[in-house]
Structure formats: C-alpha cells, structure tokens
C-alpha cells in the first residue's frame, strides 16, 4: 500500500479521510499484529469453555483454527499450481468473450472524485 502523495485529505469524503489512517504502512502493520493477537486469544479460548460437539475430531483443541489455516494455505498453493496449467492470455476466447473487451462506455457513469 503505497502512499499517493497527490491525495489531499481535504479532497476526500469524510469517511475516506478517516480511512486514510490505513494509508500508512505502520498502521497496516498494527492491524496485522492485532490479527495475530486475536488469533492467539481465539486459540486459547478453546481451553476455557466446554465444547458442545458431535464429532470426536472437533474436541481436538484448536481444531477449527488449524483446519482453517492449513486448508486455506493448501487451497492457495494448489490454486497457484493449477494456474500453471490453466492460465491463458486474456484474449484467448476473443472475440467470443467479454474478457478482453472494454466495458461499453455509454453504460457507465465514470466520474473521478475531484472531477
């Protein structure tokens, strides 16, 4: 997330100005650290209450956490491998496909924020 020097806070909508907070690397890092902490808390939460479960495997502490983490990692990695085989240029199906076409301008209402 690079900082766009041209963004003048006073040009942005109020909400956008507030969100400019995200524009700094340090704050993004703070969010990430916050996520780590939340995850750690959630993981330990498993030891603090009685689970009502149907399956044996669910009782394993942090099962949902680990399952979510590793399955997602596996998902991304296998998708990345799939891409090696499946990726084609954008105009592969052209002209029988919308992928490489511009969206017709007359159906849009392009407006830049300060324009």
């Amino acid at each position: 997330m690079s900082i766009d020097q041209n963004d003048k806070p006073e040009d942005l909508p109020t909400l956008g100005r507030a969100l400019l907070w995200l524009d700094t690397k340090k704050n993004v890092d703070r969010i990430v650290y916050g996520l780590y902490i939340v995850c750690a808390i959630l993981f330990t939460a498993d030891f603090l209450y009685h689970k009502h479960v149907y399956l044996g495997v669910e009782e394993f502490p942090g099962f949902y956490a680990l399952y979510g983490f590793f399955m997602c990692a596996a998902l991304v990695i296998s998708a990345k491998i799939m891409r090696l085989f499946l990726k084609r240029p954008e105009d592969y199906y052209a002209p029988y496909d919308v992928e490489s076409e511009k969206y017709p301008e007359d159906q849009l209402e392009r407006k830049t924020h300060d324009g």
Partner: protein
Amino acid sequence: MAETFPIAFLFFAGAAGLLALPKGHARAALLLAVPVVACLFVWSLPEGNLWTVRFFNLDLEFMRVDRLSRIFALIFTIAAFLGNLYAWHVRDTVQQLAALLYAGSAIGAVFAGDLITLFFYWEGTAITSVFLIWARRTEGAYHTGVRYLIVQVGSGVLLLAGAALFYRESGSIAFDKMTLGSIGTWLIFLAFGIKCAFPLLHNWLQDAYPAATVTGTVVLSAFTTKLAVYALARGFPGTEMLIYIGAVMTLFPIFFAVIENDLRRVLAYSLNNQLGFMVVGIGIGTELSLNGTAAHAFAHILYKALLFMSVGAVLFRTGTAKGSELGGLYKTMPLTMIFCVIGAASISAFPLFSGFISKSLILSAASHDGYYIVWAILLFASAGVFHHSGIKIPYFAFFAHDSGLRPKEAPLHMLLAMGLTAFLCVAIGVFPGPLYALLPFDVDYVPYTTTHVVTQLQLLFFSALAFTVLMRTGIYPPELKSVNLDTDWTYRRLMPVLIGSVSGVLSKVWAAQSNFTQTRIRAVIARLYHSHGPEGRMAQSWPTGSMVIWIAVLLGFTLIVNFLS
C-alpha cells in the same frame, strides 16, 4: 383475499404498463412498485392450490402456495425490488422489460404446481434473462448470451422431455417429490441440474454472469440458480446423490475463484460454491437440512446481490471489475467499500451476519446425520469462501496496491440499494427469528451458542491469518490479466476445432456432391423447358387434326380396357 391470481401476471402486466409510460423516473418508479405490490400479495396468500386452469385433460396449477414456495417467492420479490432500485438510473427499455419479465417468470415457476407450467416459466426465465446479457451490446456479450441461451433452453427442453416421459409413466404431471429411476425423472433431474450449475454443467454461470450489464448481473444472480434449488428441493429432497454433488460443488469453484482476475467472475464461482451448500441440504433431506437450504437461499440472494452491487458500482465508476486494475478505492468510495465488506462478512458466515445463521443449519444437519467427510468438505469450503469472497473481493477492489483510480462514490440510488441490502444482511444475522419462522418446517435451532461462535471465529480468523501470511510472504498468487481454463474449454475450444476439421472434410464432399446435383438439376430443367416451355412440344397449340387423333387413341384405349376386363 377473496380473489387470487398468479403473482407472475402482476409482473407481466407491469411490463406491459412499462411500455405505456415515458422513459425516465415514472418507469423506474413502476419497476419498484411492482415487486412491492407482489411482495404484499405473496405475504398475504393463503396456502393451497389457488388458481387452476384445465387444459385438455390436464390440470395446470398456477398457484401452488405452501411454505416452501412462499419463502422463495418472497425473497424473489425482495430481490427484484432491490435489483430495480439499484438499476434506477438505467433508461434501457430492454433491460427494464427483461428484469420484470425475468422476475415474473421466476416467481411463476416457484408457484407452478405441475411440470407443464413449470416448463413454460422455466423457459421464460431463460429467454428473458438473456437480454440482460445482450444489453451490454458488445460482440463478446452477444456470443456469451447465445451460449447461455443454448444451455438454458436446452435445460428446458430436457425438462419438457422428462415431463412427457414422466406423464406416460405415472399418468400425472403434478410437480411433487419424485424418485430417481426412470428416464423421465432422470431427465427432469438433469434439467434442474443444469440450471443449478452442477459440477461439469456449471460453466454457463461463470461464463454468462460477468458478461451481463452492471445492473443485469445483480438481477441474474438472484433468480435462475435459486429457482433450480427450489425445484430440486421440491422434486428431489433426500436424494443421496445430491449430497455428494453438492459437496463437489462447494469445493471446486473455490480453487478457480482464488486465481480468477475478474471480480464478478470470482463472485460467480463463489455463487456456485454457495449453491453447493444448498444442494447438500436438499440431499440430506431432513427437516433441519431443508430448512437450512431455504434459509441459505434467502440469505444468499441478499448477500450475493450486495456483493455484485458493490463490485458493479466499482465497474460503473471505473469501467473495469478486474482485480489487476483495481485497488485503493476505499479512499473515494468508502461507503461502497463498507457495504462490500458487510456482504463479504455475510457470505463468510461471520457471527451476527446472515450467512452464519443459515449455513450452520446445513452444516449441523450434515454432522447430525453422520456425513463426516461431507461435513469436512463443507467446512473447508466455508473457509475457502471466506478466503476468496470474504477477503479477496474487498481487498483487491478497495485496498491492495493503489491503482491510482480516484472514482467518485457510487450514485445515491445504488448506495440506497446496497444500504438496504446490507441492513437486511445484518438484521437477519442479528435477529434470525423472523426468517426461521418463514422456513418450510418448524425450527428448533439456536445458532448462537458459545461453541458455535468460537469455532466459527477460529475458522475465519485463522483463514484470514493464512491469507495475511501468504500475502506478506508473497506466496499469494497476484491478480494477473488472464483467463483460466475451465471445463467450458471443451465446448468453446476443443469442440469447435474437432467440428471444424470434420466439417472441413464434410463440406468438401458436400460441395462436390451438390455441384454434381446442380449440374444434373440444371440439365433436367433445360430438358423440361425444351418440352414443356411455351415453345415446347407439350405446350404449343396443336392442329385440330392432331387433337382428333388423340380422341381416337383414347377411345381405342378405353374400348380395349373395357373389352378385355
């Protein structure tokens, strides 16, 4: 209400009325009024077969109202209202008509109590909806629309064939619970399966939805597939095969969604994945799971529409919906971003959002009935859907690297539509009671238990953690300008090549043959002209004597025949 009438007719009448109005706000207002009136009617309908037409010796049931059909009709009217509000700015008569007729057909199909009526509305949804794709008016959209139409109409044809066979086997055209076994029921099942985007029959969905117009996709996302879900829930509840079909359906689209660049296509894949949950619910076939399917369809239509709306708004303002070209929009489109996040949270089933209270019904049903593998797959798919719909969509559209685009916030009516939808998503998530009351069976289920909330949060946050880690380490595949092959490659590339080469040979043979025939025919015509033409022997004026000869010949001939017999 003393007099009932098919709710679908309200939409058709609205479409006719639309043409009488001048273009502009009057039309847009009518487009909003029709679903509202329809919604009120649906709400107040009593149960039963309310409108029967006798056609030859068949009873056509236009209004079979029960709890299952009512909840689907209700959400369809709501979706039509939201979609039309979102499309307030559209002045294209074709799209407005298509949206009304399409919604009307879908509602008509939901209330259809027999297979013939179902077929007519089934084809109605196909034929009307394609105009939402063609309305983009580009060559690619045209071809995509044609592919879409072929598949959809094909599904209708299978349905009709199946209905005919079913009628012959059972002597009934009633649309009720069927059991697979005969060819007729299999054909009907296949017809539903195509529209429901079963694995390998799914391509039309990812192909067509991103090709529709900004507003068209929102409308498209609501009806066709959910109609198929309704039809399956009505016709084949408890068909075990559906559990496995549904499980595969939840699974494979998420892989494609991760590497897909076009955000609207990512949403189409995740739509497919969500359908999988519903199909599993139908397959399990218990009261809990069927409730789950209905509830999930209800919630899903809303949050999926919300997601399509927010991405659509981005497309509307920037001219693209591709992850590789977007990013950093949160500064100037913060409201759209927030609504998108609410939609993402809903589809990811965060507690307090609508997906949480509907999806858990299906997952619980799976684990209750001992489908452990299926349950594990659904869990994985839940994490996966959060991964690509919940994080990827908002992240690549509004955050990620700054694209430099500084579009203006979405227009007011879009914000209103998104705001309303977002409100419903949250409201359903926080107060599930009213939705549960609408479900086909009585509900005895509490979604908010400590275990459920904590485990769900664990699953989601650790998925987010995985995303963050992969992103930060650069392992996460970047958004690239590309298309990815799916099974549609077989009919979009392989088949044309095969057919092309075969037809090349055939056309040569044909050309040679027709050339030969033409020469022959020309010779025959020349000969005919020679004999029968104005100067030919047959047509010229004969001398009187020759006519007399003919008389004699004929008389002689007749006499011979007479005397010999």
